[in-house]
């Protein structure tokens, strides 16, 4: 029987959740015996090769492209898991929701003390930035949420192994983080 497939994506986050997933350390070897990885920034697979059993999403949606990737994951993944504060609530990047996007851009590209001849980037080859940062569940249906900034490695391990064994994940109280 073919191994279950897992895909991962990092949207508007910091990659810390992916790093925490790698913090399962020696269990990585066990994990790759259990599953095949499909589209993920840790490998070279850039398009879905077919339906995937579990999709893991880090980060919220700050650009049009983020939203498109998220919708693609929803389409291909049977179970979609949002991990970390950014995916769950928008997180630190959503602090920009309290000010206008224009002000943020002006500060970075026009007003910064080291900026010379500033201009606000605007080109068809760069993503359209959304008016605000959206948590994943405001864009697509999410099946499971793992909190934490980032969630501890043990939380990742429990959720992945539970889903692969067909049972409900039980994250121990100590591994449920909201920092």
């Amino acid at each position: 029987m073919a191994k279950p497939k897992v895909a991962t994506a990092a949207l508007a986050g910091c990659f810390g959740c992916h790093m925490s997933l790698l913090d399962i350390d020696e269990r990585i070897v066990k994990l790759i015996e259990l599953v095949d990885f499909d589209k993920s920034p840790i490998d070279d697979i850039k398009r879905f090769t077919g339906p995937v059993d579990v999709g893991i999403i880090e980060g919220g949606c700050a650009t049009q492209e983020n939203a498109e990737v998220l919708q693609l994951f929803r389409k291909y993944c049977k179970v979609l898991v949002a991990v970390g504060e950014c995916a769950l609530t928008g997180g630190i990047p959503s602090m920009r929701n309290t000010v206008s996007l224009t002000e943020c851009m002006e500060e970075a590209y026009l007003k910064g003390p080291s900026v010379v001849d500033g201009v606000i980037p605007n080109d068809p080859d760069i993503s359209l930035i959304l008016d605000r940062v959206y948590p994943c569940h405001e864009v697509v249906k999410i099946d499971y949420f793992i909190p934490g900034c980032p969630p501890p490695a043990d939380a990742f391990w429990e959720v992945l192994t539970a889903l692969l064994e067909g049972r409900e994940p039980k994250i121990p109280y100590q591994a449920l983080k909201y920092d």
Partner: protein
Amino acid sequence: MSVASTTKEKKIVINPVTRIEGHAKVTIHLNEKGKVDTARMHIVEFRGFERFVQGRLYWEAPVIVQRLCGICPISHLLCAAKAMDVIVGADRLTPTGEKMRRLMHYGQVFQSHALHFFHLSSPDLLLGYDADPVIRNVIGIAQKYPELATQAILMRKYGQEVIKATAGKKIHGTGAIPGGINKNLSDEEKTFLKKDIDQMIQWSVESVALYKKLYLDDIDRLSKLGSFESNYVSINRKDGCLDLYDGLLRAKDPDGKIIFDMVKPMDYLKYIREGVRDWSYMKFPFIYSLGQEKGWYRVGPLARINNCDFIDTPLAEKERQEFMELGGGKPVHATMAYHWARLIETLHAAEKIKELLDDPDIQGKNLVTSGDRRHEGIAILEAPRGTLFHHYKVDDKDQITMANLIVSTTSNNEPMNQSVRRVAEDYLEGAQITEPLLNLVEVAIRAYDPCLSCATHAIGQMPLKVKLIDVKGDVIEEKVHD
């Protein structure tokens, strides 16, 4: 770009670039003769930290800005804390404060470099640039070289354990605070970390040897791949020694001559500025005196090893001397030599960790200090990927009123464009986007270990799309690498 031009030019787009951290895509612009004109790596995300930290209390900055990057959060935690040391008037930290922070930093350099070399880059080097994408990743390494994969996992784990012991948590800890630190090293942590350090040093020595062999065996190709001469910027200790945590700015030109030296962090604006292009969210830093056109420079392991006069740990110093022979008295300009320099630093970090673990000060009780308050704080640090600048202004109510961040990968922005251009010049056949071209563009970009998360203060997966564009701006061919 002259969209109105009537001559024919082409553009190639590579999207996404995987196994590097962040979002980017590449366009290659051809001139009327069908030769490569320019290459652009477009950074497609933006976050706006500079604006939204305004109004936050100064002591929140280290924990907020470290969320720029989950791969080297300690760099931002420490750099912000160092800037806030200036704000709280902590001109000299307690020995325990300074040494715990250094231990934290070397732990991070160790884990970040190990991650980059083994998890992200070694698949290209050991499995081949043209290996099947399905196996050309860390999982493929685990299957073909299980011992090396285990070693990679344990090296990264060790660095993460050092971070946990010093910062409280493996990712996004809180250890560094304005004026010092919030914990020292317990007996238990010290014993735990000392147990494996000799093994880490040994593996680091072997890693340098492994890459050295790979490089020298293929030197004709690797010394040219994506290479060019450039300026280099880094900080050094006052006496010219490699120092990743603190020091004075130095810039060298392609011949190794000093452009500026002994520059204090507070004076950075006199020497470094940033340009902006409308086609990327990542800015373009340059040496002010040389101007935007000629002033761009490289940072990171290659720049640091080229710029320093010596390394104060014996094994890494020996490797540095051998490495510098490649340049024959001048800086080493080969882009693929970044990996070699990075592994020398990995070894240096391991040696430093050992030194610090034997230092009684890391168990001292005096953690925090302060002095007269100031309203402006500037700090510079060598993050794994290069020189990092944090600059803040704080008002009387403790609120941040201005933040300026020049992060490591940003300085390598123009160099990465240059590398892509060089690869395109060497490997583009006619107007065809070939598979080897796509692979080598990625390999060249990856040599810089770009953390695009930090660089745009944004992150995501790293798509590689190459677009071939003509002088009119029309896309002739577009290829997604998969």
